[in-house]
């Protein structure tokens, strides 16, 4: 099923398209430490792709490579059919890759609405002079921006806090606002770095629902890192398993669950 280059159909009947992003033989070193060693995998259009692994496996480093924060020493990153040259994170964002952070990285001094609207900066085209005049083009663009922001705010059910400064919000809501900020950019690929970290069961259920809804409603391709195995196995279509910077498994949740290397990595191996 996975060998089909034209895509595949998931167990719940969603049609998954061609390859959006392909990592080819990525190796990332920090001095003498090898964080990622010769890893290849692909992300297909419309799927939810998880990257899992024990602590220090190199998952976050992998996400940082995708979002352009780290430049790998070896290997190639292909995005939408073209090899991506080394570029700055903001250029990566302009290509249509949005992300959230493990430790919330919201703009604390701004309101929820402003945070969400900032997420659409890449779509803004008005220059400094039309903005200084405001009336006319800049105002029109601002209203369009606001409409899109409100759509996402509705979608994630954060209407009543839209004018609250982010610094006053509890953790779970901040996570949701961060998701809104990433979504409003209408990304072609959405990266989620531990979207459920530090949440209770109820919040995790909410967040899982939102992730599935986003994928369903907007057809957004999602790559996520997560520690909660139950969540990962339920949410994702395909899973990459990393351990000590190496890829030890790749496939559907069921395949991964039966993979002996994966079981060894998580449960440990008896030394005899």
């Amino acid at each position, binding site marked *: 099923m996975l060998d089909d280059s034209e895509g595949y159909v998931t167990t719940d009947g969603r049609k998954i398209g061609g390859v959006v992003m392909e990592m080819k033989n990525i190796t990332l070193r920090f001095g003498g430490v090898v964080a990622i060693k010769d890893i290849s995998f692909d992300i297909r259009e419309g799927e939810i792709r998880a990257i899992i692994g024990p602590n220090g496996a190199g998952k976050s480093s992998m996400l940082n490579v995708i*979002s352009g924060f780290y430049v790998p020493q070896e290997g190639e990153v292909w995005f939408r059919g073209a090899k991506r040259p080394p570029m700055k994170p903001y250029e990566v964002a302009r290509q249509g890759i949005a992300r959230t952070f493990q430790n919330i990285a919201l703009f604390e001094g701004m309101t929820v609405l402003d945070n969400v609207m900032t997420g659409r*900066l890449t779509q803004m085209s008005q220059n400094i002079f039309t903005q*200084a005049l405001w009336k006319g083009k800049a105002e029109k663009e601002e209203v369009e921006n606001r409409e899109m922001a409100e759509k996402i705010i509705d979608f994630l059910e954060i209407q009543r806090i839209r004018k609250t400064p982010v610094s006053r919000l509890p953790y779970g809501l901040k996570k949701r606002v961060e998701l809104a900020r990433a979504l409003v950019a209408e990304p072609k690929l959405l990266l989620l770095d531990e979207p459920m970290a530090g949440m209770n069961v109820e919040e995790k259920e909410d967040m899982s629902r939102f992730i599935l809804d986003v994928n369903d409603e907007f057809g957004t391709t999602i790559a996520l890192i997560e520690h909660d195995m139950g969540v990962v196995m339920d949410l994702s279509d395909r899973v990459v398993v990393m351990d000590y910077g190496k890829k030890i498994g790749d496939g559907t949740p069921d395949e991964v669950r039966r993979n002996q290397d994966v079981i060894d990595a998580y449960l440990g191996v008896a030394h005899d």
Partner: protein
Amino acid sequence: MFYREAGDFKTSYIDDGQTFPIRFDRYRFYAVLAVAFLVVPFIVGDYTANAILLPFLIYAIAAIGLNILTGYCGQVSLGTGGFMAVGAYACYKLMTAFPEVSIFIHVILSGGVTAAVGVLFGLPSLRIKGFYLAVATLAAQFFLVWLFNRVPWFYNYSASGQISAPEREVFGVAVTGPHTEAWATYLFCLVFCLGTGLVARNLTRGTLGRSWMAIRDMDIAAEIIGVNPLRAKLTAFAVSSFFVGIAGALFFAVYLGAVEVGEVFGIQKSFLVLFMIIIGGLGSIFGSFAGAAFLVLLPVILKLVGVNLLGFPTDIVAHFQLIIVGSLIILFLVLEPHGIARLWNVTREKLRLWPFPH
């Protein structure tokens, strides 16, 4: 009683995003404008204009400029005095080189020149942050003052090393030079002050303002969501210097008339404008006005109370002023880092609900 938003529903995003969403605020703003343009020019005297109104308007422009850079974009600058000097000298060179062009255009062009210089000195901001950037802008301050002192071309080789504004007119009324009327200079500065206020408000509430605040609050996250940090910081430096340059040009041409750079645009000026935005409120246009008004009025009021009412010697009152400003800055930094603007907002929240506590 009248400070209510109940029943004042917004049905469009344009209405919701306007500068004064509460009706009472909006009408009060129009009332202030009407008084400023239609009443004050007829009653203003030389003393009020020169001691209060002109410095207030000009410092407000400078404070808005610095607030955009420091309050909105988070880049500390101690070079405000130097950049004001750039505006003043640019205006002087333009006025003497092209006497037939309107002074109005000269002042705006001076802002443009200052913006270019600001961008140049803003370049290090991509690599250095916080205190180190402050020191870099401090270097700009001293370098610019030194430059204007040492290169005679800037003061047209005059023997005194000073620059003095030749007489220029707008619509046949003198606004610079020795024969100016108080109302004319006041109106001239008021137009610029209103213009800068509106432009600053428009820039800070839109896309550009959000990219500045994103850089201020968390630069790494800003970059990840698509803010080009170099662009955001340099536009902040450019816009900020543009306003500061206009303030410098007005300060020299309209307010003082003649300037000795080291005295007028020294490091004290940088600190004065910085104190204005700290006391007024970082990241607030209203705060820039409030801070400027406060620090302009404080010496006047102290003099009125101390010298005229209580009969203290002038030098003692001057010392008191230093003590009061110093302790106020410490108080504001500790108790209310967002300054008068935040105090005003809190009062407003209370007023909206008055007489109910919640």
